């Protein structure tokens, strides 16, 4: 009995549980909004337009958990998409071209990683720069109207269906979420990412190859931008230098709503995936009820706030006190005065967090 209770309490205290509750709540709301919401085809198709955003969010999650940020991720996707499209237009086999696109994205991610990790530069400043640079690169490679009409076999990854209703892209995103979840939560590399995000100095002292892991994290982010590009082209059938414009905010929303600590050191793949579902579900429900686009934005923003505040209240009540600290998405703060001083003095801290 006690054990069951303990498990229940631990489950309740998890961010993911709150997201599931929110998903159910949003589902009930959407059902009242529109009779079309509960149709099986609609439910299965819910995520498809947002899968490229989810894939980028998965990649960004690694970077954020390691205590960094990658603002350039959407530009990176655009750059890899146009490389891929130009190669395809030049007659290269579509799959080979897609593979090269993935490679390009990974290299661009690595460039971010090298600047941040080898030169010890702040990731926010660097990726604000590469945000513009990669976007420019995309226009240099493919200016103007872009490439369309990709072979049907290829478009299936993004826009194909099994048995008319089950989107193939849904399987792609679930598979990648599983793989990345395993990498993050069940490998030594994943453990290193968390440790570095929690306390980089400590990680270094404990013999973790900090520089290498930090570079790898950016490479993963790049690779996922590449995958996002592959799905993007498959689903939308359009490859232009401005691919993904205006998606950065959505990507960051998925990551932070997914419970990833913006200061690093905490977060889960499951959380990001659930956050993606929640946002997609709400958008879909409101879409089907023809709620205006700007009202949709307000509701999503409100939800973001409500989710965090509800979490705070939940913990307050559970803790049996009204006053609590910030919601502990397992966020840790450097308390030791000396440690902070050391970090500031050695200028190791200025990177981290945030974006648009």
């Amino acid at each position, binding site marked *: 009995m006690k054990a069951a209770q303990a498990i229940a309490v631990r489950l309740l205290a998890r961010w993911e549980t709150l997201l599931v509750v929110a998903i159910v709540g949003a589902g009930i709301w959407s059902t009242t909004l529109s009779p079309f919401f509960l149709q099986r085809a609609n439910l299965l198709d819910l995520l498809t337009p947002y899968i490229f955003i989810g894939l980028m969010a998965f990649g960004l999650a690694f970077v954020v958990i390691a205590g960094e940020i990658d603002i350039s991720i959407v530009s990176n996707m655009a750059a890899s998409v146009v490389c891929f499209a130009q190669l395809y237009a030049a007659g290269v086999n579509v799959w080979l071209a897609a593979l090269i696109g993935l490679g390009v994205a990974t290299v661009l991610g690595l460039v971010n990683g090298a*600047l941040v990790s080898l030169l010890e530069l702040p990731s926010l400043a660097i990726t*604000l720069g590469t945000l513009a640079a990669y976007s420019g690169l995309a226009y240099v490679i493919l200016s103007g109207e872009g490439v369309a009409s990709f072979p049907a076999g290829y478009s299936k990854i993004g826009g194909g269906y099994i048995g008319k209703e089950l989107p193939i892209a849904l399987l792609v995103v679930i598979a990648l979420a599983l793989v990345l979840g395993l990498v993050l939560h069940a490998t030594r590399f994943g453990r290193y990412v968390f440790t570095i995000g929690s306390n980089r100095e400590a990680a270094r002292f404990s013999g973790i190859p900090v520089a290498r892991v930090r570079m790898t994290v950016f490479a993963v982010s790049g690779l996922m931008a590449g995958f996002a590009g592959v799905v993007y082209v498959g689903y939308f059938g359009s490859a232009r230098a401005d691919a993904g414009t205006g998606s950065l905010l959505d990507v960051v929303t998925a990551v*932070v709503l997914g419970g990833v600590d913006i200061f690093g050191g905490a977060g889960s793949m499951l959380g990001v995936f659930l956050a993606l579902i929640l946002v997609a579900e709400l958008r879909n429900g409101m879409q089907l009820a023809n709620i205006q686009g700007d009202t949709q934005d307000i509701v999503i923003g*409100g939800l973001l706030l409500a989710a965090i505040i509800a979490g705070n209240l939940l913990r307050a009540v559970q803790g049996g006190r009204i006053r609590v600290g910030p919601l502990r998405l397992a966020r840790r703060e450097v308390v030791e005065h000396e440690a902070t001083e050391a970090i500031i003095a050695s200028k190791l*801290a200025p990177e981290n*967090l945030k974006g648009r």
Partner: protein
Amino acid sequence: MSPSLRGITPQTLAAAVLRLREFGILLALGAAVAFFTIRAPNFDSVGNWQGIAQNVAIVIVVGVGETLVVLTRNIDLSVGSIVGLTAYLSAATFAHYSGAPLPVVALIAVAIGLCLGLANGLLVAVAKVPAIIATLATLAIYRGIDVQITGGGNITAYELPDRFLKLASTKPAGVPTLAWVAAGVAVVGAAAVRWAPWSRDLYAIGSNPEAARFAGIPVGRRVITAFALSGALAGLGGFLWASRFPTVDAVAAKGFELDVITAVVIGGVNVFGGSGTMLGVALGALLVATIQNGFTLLRISEFWRLFFNGFAIVVAVTIDALVTRRLQEALRRRRAEALAARHLEAGA
């Protein structure tokens, strides 16, 4: 910190300049100006510098507020939306009451911005929502409200009184009015950050929130103040925006937060809180505007221009970081040597 009067020699002066945190940015700015003066036609003309000043002004006004927030280890992503909303409301006020006095409308814009900023501050300090999430949400919410108020329409320059539009077009003493306002805001901000007791608290909070709390600093109140001021300055920015870009619709200043944050970050403000100066932010904004302007003047392809813009920012950040690190190490070594020498003297 500052050398005592009688000790001023060329050496100490040079050392003081080198000790400036902004030395790296100055160096990057100098390099950019030198490059463009040689390569870009008309870059060094008065008209062009007036243009750069014009472009950088609103970024600095809003950037000063953003800096206050970032110093406390928070961030305000909603400034673009606040600028957009207050720009529309300022324009709408003039459109309905063409006789409204400028300072009154400016105050209304500032007050609205203050309220929106206050809401951010309360969310962060009282509801304990992490700043990036809170302001990401209000970015969407404030913009959504803006779209609903405009109803998909706009206010055009024709509906606005000339004296309001003149605000952006006049150039007292050869410097655009907007730049004067920006300089004023930056100086006041720098002075406040240097001397006001509450602003020193901001640095303390940003360096170490827990320690600040133990030291008896009213952390919550200071954070709320920082957000409120950031909102108020964004409100002022919105008022200026409507004068500079007088056809105001719901997309006004969309994405502007990215420009502001770029200036703040390039200006050397530590996004992990606790360090940064207003001079740095102003220089950061100037550096970005100079780079953008310079490449536009170079007769190169538009697409390469975009690439070089970003590339130059990366280079500038690198120069700044490397120079600062070198200087700090050199200073530390010199201080250690001096200390050792004094020990030796004492020993002898």
